[in-house]
């Protein structure tokens, strides 16, 4: 009889305990991929698909994914190729992933090179999207050689805000000038790291080997 009483008390207290433990933080991932389409880097778009496919395979229901191109002036929603917040149901999320993949496939077939590369504009646009979607973990993946070339009249020399966002530069190819003087390449990466960290980013990393994509979603 006593046991039954204790059991009853425990069962009654269980919802209270569970509600007390309820975790209101978001556990979802939000990833914004910026794809450089300037000059010769256009040829690397096929590699960008590898990353996107990896993300589609590993992102879960409730996660957000957006892919945008980096052009002459990239602070614009028009540059977003596809964006989605996956449904909470895994089956629906799978359908959305298929549709997303088709959009990326169409983009890869018709990609055109741009004259300039506005990485900063793309970063600002990405931060804006991620802050709006407000996932638990925010990541910006920049698929570029990280050589920013701004057109006439484009102003980007001001502090940007990337608070709480992880930034990753992927497939940072070496330019012909980098081959002559590797310090240019290293200085370029160091400059971007400083800019990103000054902007409040939680982490900065460079992945050139696409075999190690597990770092993209791991260790967050």
């Amino acid at each position: 009889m006593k046991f039954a009483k204790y059991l009853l008390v425990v069962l009654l207290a269980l919802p209270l305990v569970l509600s007390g433990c309820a975790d209101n933080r978001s556990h979802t991932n939000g990833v914004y991929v910026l794809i450089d389409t300037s000059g010769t880097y256009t040829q690397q778009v096929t590699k960008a698909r590898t990353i996107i496919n990896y993300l589609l395979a590993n992102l879960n229901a409730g996660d957000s994914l957006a892919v945008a191109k980096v052009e002459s002036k990239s602070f614009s929603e028009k540059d977003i190729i596809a964006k989605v917040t996956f449904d909470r149901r895994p089956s629906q999320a799978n359908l959305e992933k298929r549709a997303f993949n088709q959009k990326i496939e169409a983009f890869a077939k018709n990609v055109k090179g741009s004259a300039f590369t506005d990485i900063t504009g793309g970063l600002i646009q990405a931060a804006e999207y991620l802050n709006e979607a407000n996932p638990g973990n925010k990541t910006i993946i920049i698929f570029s050689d990280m050589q920013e070339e701004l057109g006439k009249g484009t102003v980007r020399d001001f502090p940007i805000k990337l608070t709480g966002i992880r930034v990753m530069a992927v497939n940072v190819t070496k330019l012909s000038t980098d081959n002559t003087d590797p310090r240019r390449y290293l200085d370029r990466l160091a400059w971007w790291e400083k800019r990103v960290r000054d902007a409040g980013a939680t982490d900065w990393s460079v992945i050139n080997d696409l075999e190690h994509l597990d770092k993209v979603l791991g260790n967050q």
Partner: protein
Amino acid sequence: MNNLNSWLFWPDQVALSVLALFFLLTIFLYAARIPAHNVIISLCSLAGHALRFTASWLLLTAEGLRQRNKTVLLAHGQAEVTSQIEREFERVTALVRKELGEYPALQRKMMDELTRIEEDYLKCGEVPPPTPEWVEALSTIANLKSGGDIAKKLLEDLQKSVQKVHDKTISEYRKSYEGRHKILKSLMPVWRSVDKSVKNIDANMVNLNANAKAIDTHMARYEEMRAKTDKSEHTLAISAFVQLGISSLVMMIAVGGAFINFKLIALPMSEMVGASDYITNSLRTSDVAALVIVLMEATMGVFLLESLRITHLFPTMSSMNDQLRRRVMWAALILLLILAGIESSLALMRDMLIADKAAMLHDLSTVQPVASDSLLTHIPMVGQMVMGFVLPFVLAFVAIPLEVAVYSLRTVAGVVLVMLMRAISFALRFLAMIFNRLGRILVNIYDITIVLPLLVERWVIGLRGSVPAKASDLKTGRAS
């Protein structure tokens, strides 16, 4: 360093300052020797007494607890043995009622069969062939002194008649034997029937004997428990340990089954309650929902077995009237069936979700694999569905080891608690003894620190009263 300097009288002359400090400290310690000794002895004695008091209290409490445990254990044991004896008596009653109820009919049948056997036996008694009358005639003819041909003819006629009579007699004799054999043959089933009846009676008697022996054993145990002997308490405690071990093992196996059950429905539950909701940092809502389903199945199983009176965890349910109890049983069974059905369909959904994800990954990959629709791909799906339906029913039986664990855990916990209290009591007594000795050790250490003034004191005392002291020493030495 500054702190150290503040203790020095002359910071420039450290050695002198330390010496002065030591001198002052020694004087102080010597002056405070008797009160310090008293304080040390009192404190150690206080600690020792407190520890011994706590140890005594623990021992007393442990003894009280042991007595309570014994009472509960014996009461539980008595109830168990009583139910076993009742069950044995029920068996005996059933046996006696069944067999003794049939005894008049059996007796009548056996008497009929025995009468028939007797009659048939008499019928088949051997009838000796009639004495041939021709023997006397033959001897008469043989005694004739004159006869010649007449005698020969007579003898020939006689032979013929004798032969005829002989043939007739032999034929009748054979017929008679044939008839008796037929009677004996017809007796065989009757014999068999009698033999079977006797064997049945024998087997029943053996069963009855075994039941009587079992009742005797239970009664002996019951008497021991009534006498509250240590042996019965010990036996019951060991039995509780064994039962707890066995039930824990079975429950661990059941937990394994529950885990498989949980894994079957965790993924499809995310389709129902969403995959991105979390209750804690690492606990998904869908996982909790799946766990709740598994626990509900186990609960329904407990209620089902409880309403079937296999377990007795809830006295309320045991004391229900039969009609209400049967309703609860049907309700539990129907709910269990519904939950098993839900789980089976969730298992199917799991397979479909996995297949869907695999198809999506294939779409993303550059090399398209060849689609396979063989029987092998369907076997896991069917297996999962069957497991999903069967596991809830298997899980229902966890109520039996649970009940055993609950009842034996009380005894085991009580025994362990008593042992723990005794062990703590022993440790406290040991500490008390150490504290008592520690007082003397500390007093001696205190005296070592002021050994110089003590030597001086002894020397002064020696100077002042060396003669009387020696005389008194001599006196005490002689006396001792």
